[in-house]
C-alpha cells in the first residue's frame, strides 16, 4: 500500500511538471499580445516595450520558463499583470470558495443522485423510476446558465429567500454562507446528481440480479439489508469512480456557476485571467487545478481498496 502510494505520488509529480510545461507553452500560444491586452487603449510603443520587459516577455521562452520554475518552487507564482496583486494570494482567496462550492455540490449529487438511483433501480418500471429518470434528464439537459438565471429570478427576486450573488465565509456567518451557496450548489450539483443517478441505477440493476443478492434474499435478509448492505455497496465502486472524476470537473467547471452568482472562486479567476492574458494567473490557477485532479484521483484509487476488498494494490496477490 505504502509503495503503491509513493509510486503514485511520483507519477503525480511528473504529471505536474508536464502540466506546467504544457500550460506555460499553451498560454503563450494564445493569439493576442499580452502587453497590448494590459495596455488597454494606449498604444505608446515605449509603454508596450516597458510592459514586456517588466514581465520578462521580451526574453526567450526557455529563460521565461526557467524563471517561472525557479520562483514556483519557492512558492512564488508571481504577481498578476492585471492587478499587481500576488497570484498566490488570489489563489488562496479563491480556493476556499470553489472548494466549498464543489464539495457542497458533490454532497447534493451524492444524496440526490444515489438516492434517486437506488429508488429507480428498486422500483423499476414504476412511477418512481419514471420520475427519477425525468429528473436526471432535466439535470443533464438544462444549461447551468439558464437554470442559474431562472433560480435567481424565482428565489432571489420574486421570493427573496436566497441571495442572488456574493460569498460570505462560513467562519464569518455560517447561516449567511449557506443562504448564498444554496442556489449555486443546486445549479452546479444538478448535472452531477443526474450523472450519479444514472450510474447508480445501472450499477444497482446489475447488482440486484447478481447471484450473491439472490443468496442474501434466500437467507431471509430484510430488503433494506439486501439493497443497502450488499447491492449498493458493490455498486458504489462505479459511482465513486465517477464522483472522483467529476470532483475535478466541479473544481474547474465551476466557471459558469461562479460567473452567474458572482462567486470569487477559481473559475471566475481563471476566465478573467485568460481574457486579459494574465499569464502568471492562468499558470497558477491551472497548476492548482491540475494538482486537485491528481490528488482526487489518487484518493479514489486508494478508496477502491476500502470499498472492495477484492482489489489488491501494489501487486500483492
Amino acid at each position: 500500500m505504502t509503495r503503491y502510494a509513493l509510486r503514485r505520488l511520483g507519477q503525480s509529480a511528473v504529471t505536474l511538471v508536464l502540466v506546467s510545461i504544457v500550460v506555460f507553452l499553451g498560454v503563450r500560444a494564445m493569439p493576442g499580445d499580452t502587453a497590448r491586452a494590459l495596455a488597454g487603449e494606449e498604444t505608446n510603443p515605449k509603454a508596450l516595450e516597458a510592459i514586456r520587459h517588466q514581465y520578462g516577455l521580451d526574453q526567450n521562452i526557455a529563460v521565461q520558463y526557467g524563471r517561472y520554475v525557479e520562483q514556483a518552487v519557492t512558492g512564488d507564482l508571481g504577481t498578476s499583470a492585471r492587478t499587481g496583486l500576488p497570484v498566490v494570494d488570489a489563489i488562496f482567496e479563491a480556493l476556499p470558495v470553489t472548494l466549498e462550492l464543489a464539495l457542497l455540490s458533490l454532497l447534493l449529487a451524492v444524496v440526490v443522485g444515489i438516492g434517486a438511483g437506488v429508488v429507480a433501480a428498486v422500483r423499476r418500471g414504476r412511477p418512481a423510476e419514471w420520475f427519477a429518470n425525468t429528473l436526471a434528464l432535466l439535470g443533464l439537459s438544462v444549461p447551468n446558465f439558464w437554470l442559474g438565471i431562472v433560480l435567481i429570478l424565482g428565489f432571489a427576486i420574486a421570493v427573496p429567500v436566497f441571495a442572488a450573488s456574493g460569498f460570505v465565509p462560513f467562519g464569518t456567518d455560517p447561516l449567511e454562507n449557506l443562504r448564498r451557496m444554496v442556489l449555486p450548489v443546486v445549479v452546479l450539483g444538478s448535472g452531477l446528481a443526474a450523472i450519479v443517478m444514472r450510474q447508480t441505477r445501472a450499477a444497482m440493476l446489475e447488482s440486484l440480479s447478481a447471484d450473491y443478492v439472490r443468496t442474501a434474499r434466500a437467507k431471509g435478509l430484510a430488503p433494506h439489508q439486501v439493497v443497502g448492505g450488499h447491492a449498493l455497496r458493490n455498486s458504489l465502486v462505479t459511482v465513486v469512480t465517477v464522483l472522483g472524476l467529476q470532483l475535478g470537473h466541479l473544481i474547474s467547471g465551476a466557471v459558469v456557476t461562479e460567473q452567474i452568482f458572482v462567486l470569487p472562486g477559481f473559475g471566475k479567476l481563471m476566465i478573467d485571467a485568460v481574457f486579459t492574458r494574465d499569464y502568471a494567473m492562468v499558470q497558477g490557477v491551472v497548476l492548482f487545478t491540475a494538482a486537485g485532479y491528481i490528488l482526487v484521483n489518487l484518493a479514489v484509487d486508494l478508496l477502491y481498496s476500502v470499498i472492495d476488498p477484492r482489489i489488491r494494490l501494489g501487486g500483492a496477490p
Partner: protein
Amino acid sequence: MLPQASSRGPGQGECPRRIPALSRAAAVTAVLALGVTGCASLTTSATEVGGVRMTDERPARDGGTLTVALKSDPDKLDPSLGSTLVGRSVFASMCQKLYDTDARNRIRPQLAAGMPEVSDGGRKVVIEVRRGARFSDGTPLNAEAVETSLRRHRDLPESARSSELEPVKSIEATGGDKVELRLKEPYEPLLGALADRSGMVMSPRALKKYGEDFATHPSCVGPFRFKERVTGDRIVLEKDPNYYDASRVHLRKVVYRTIVDGNVRLANLRSGDAQISDQTAPLEVQSALTDDTLQVFNSPTLGYQGLTVNIGNSRGLGKKPGKVNSSLARDGRIREAFALSLDRALINKIVFQGMYDTACGPVAPSSELGTKMRCPGRDLGRARQLLREAGEKGRVPVELTISNTVEDMRLGQVVQAMAKDAGFQVKLRPTEFTTLLEHADKGDFEAVSVGWSGRLDPAGNIDAFAATLGSENRSGISDERIDSLIEDGRRTADPDERREIYRDVTAAINDEHALIYLYRQRNYVVTTKEIAGLRVYGDGLIRVENAGYARGGDAGGKTGADTEARSR
C-alpha cells in the same frame, strides 16, 4: 428627464397570502423558465429611454454602503498604469484630478485652485494647487506632490500616460502652491489630459513607501479611500475623513463588484445585492425601464464606433504607410460606395434598438468643440454607379473583422446584408477582441469594426488615428492636408478657430472613406430608485461623491449595507 416606467405587468403583483412563499417561488420560477428565453424585445412607450439624464438632485441621507456592479474587473489601481474605463470609475471616487469635467463636458478645476495661466505663446502653463487638501494617508497636497505625480505619469517606463504628457518638457514646483509646466511646443489637448488620469495626484509618501506596488495601496485625494481589494470580486472604498469636502459625502462605503453578465447585473439590482449597474447594454436598459424600482441615467459618450478600412497599413502601427492589396484599398470610389451602402439609422435601430446615436465624424456633438453634422444617407444608386466607375463588374469581396461579442456579430451581419445590396460580398471574420486588436495593429485586416472610448479634447479622438505616423493609425491613412490640420489643431488656442479646424479635419477624413464612423454609444447606468445624488457625465464615469440613499425614501428592504459588511 426620463419618462417614468409603467407599473408592473400582470403576474408581478401581489399573490394570495394562502400560497406559501416557496410554492410561490416555484411557480414564478416555472413561469420564468418557460418565458425567459422566449421573450422577444418589443419597444413600447414603457421602454422608451427618453432624453439625456445625467444627474439626480434628490437629497441623500448620511450612511449606508453602495454596491456598484461593474462590467469587468478594473486593472491596476495606479493612475499612471491604469487603462480601463471601469478602473476610471473607481478612481472617480478615490483619486481626484487637477481638473474635472461638468455635465456639458467643460473643464473645471478640481485639485487646481483655478484654470491654468498660459503664456509664452502656449509654451508655459502655470497651475495653482488647491490649498488645505490632504491625501488619504494624511499627507498634505501641495505643488511638490503635483510635480512628483506628473513626473511619474510622464517618465515611468510602462506609464500609459506618457504619450499624453510627452510634449511637456519640464515640470517644476515654483513655490506658492504653483506648478510650472514648460512645453516643447503649444499643446492645447494638455488641459483635457489633466482632466483625466494624467491629472491625478498621488500621495508622495505612498509613492515613496510602495513604489511599483502603489496599485495595492493607492492613496490620493478623494471622497473615499481604498480599503481592500479581492481579485475578480470586489474593491472596497470607505469614506475618507481627510477629504476637504467630507461633510458633503454621504455614503459610509462604496463597494465595486465585478459582474460580467448584464442580465446578472440587473438581477442583482432587483434582488438588492447591488444598487448601480455600470455600462448597461440596450436590451437590458429596456428591461430596466419596465421595472418601477429602477431608474436609468444616460449620457452621450465622447467616443465613436465604426469601421476602419486598411488603405496603407502594410507594415504595422508606427511605420510609414505602404501599399495594400485589396479592392477597398485600391480605389477611394469603392470605399465610398461601401460607405454609401450603409444605413446608420437602421443599423442603430436593428442592432441597438435605436438606443445609441448615429455618427459620421470623430468629434462628438456633445464635446465642447463638437459640431452637429448631418450624416449622409444610404444611396444604393450612387454606390452602384461608383462601383461601375471603378471598373468593378462582379461582387466586390470584402473581409470584415469583427469581435466575437453578440453585438458586434449582429452589427457585422447587418453590414453584410446592407453592403450586399450595393454589390459587395462581405465575409465576416469573428475574432476575440485582444487578437482583433493585434491583427489591426499589424495591418492584418481589410476592414475592421473597432471604436474609441473618446477623449474630452477632439485631438484625443483624431490625432493618433488619422495622422500619418499616429500611434493608432490602423487604416494607414496618409494625407498631408490632414496632417497639417492636426498640427494646427494642437497649436491653436482660440476655441472657435479650433472648432473650425476640427470640422475641416473631419471633412478631410471622410473624403478618404478609410474611417467610416457609424454610431456613438450612450452611457447607460441603471440604479435602484433608492439611490440619490448620482452623476453620470459624458465620460461615462459614475460619480458617487454626493450620492447616497434618498432621504425619506423607502430603502427597498435590503440596502446592501448589512450584507457587505460581512461578505468577502
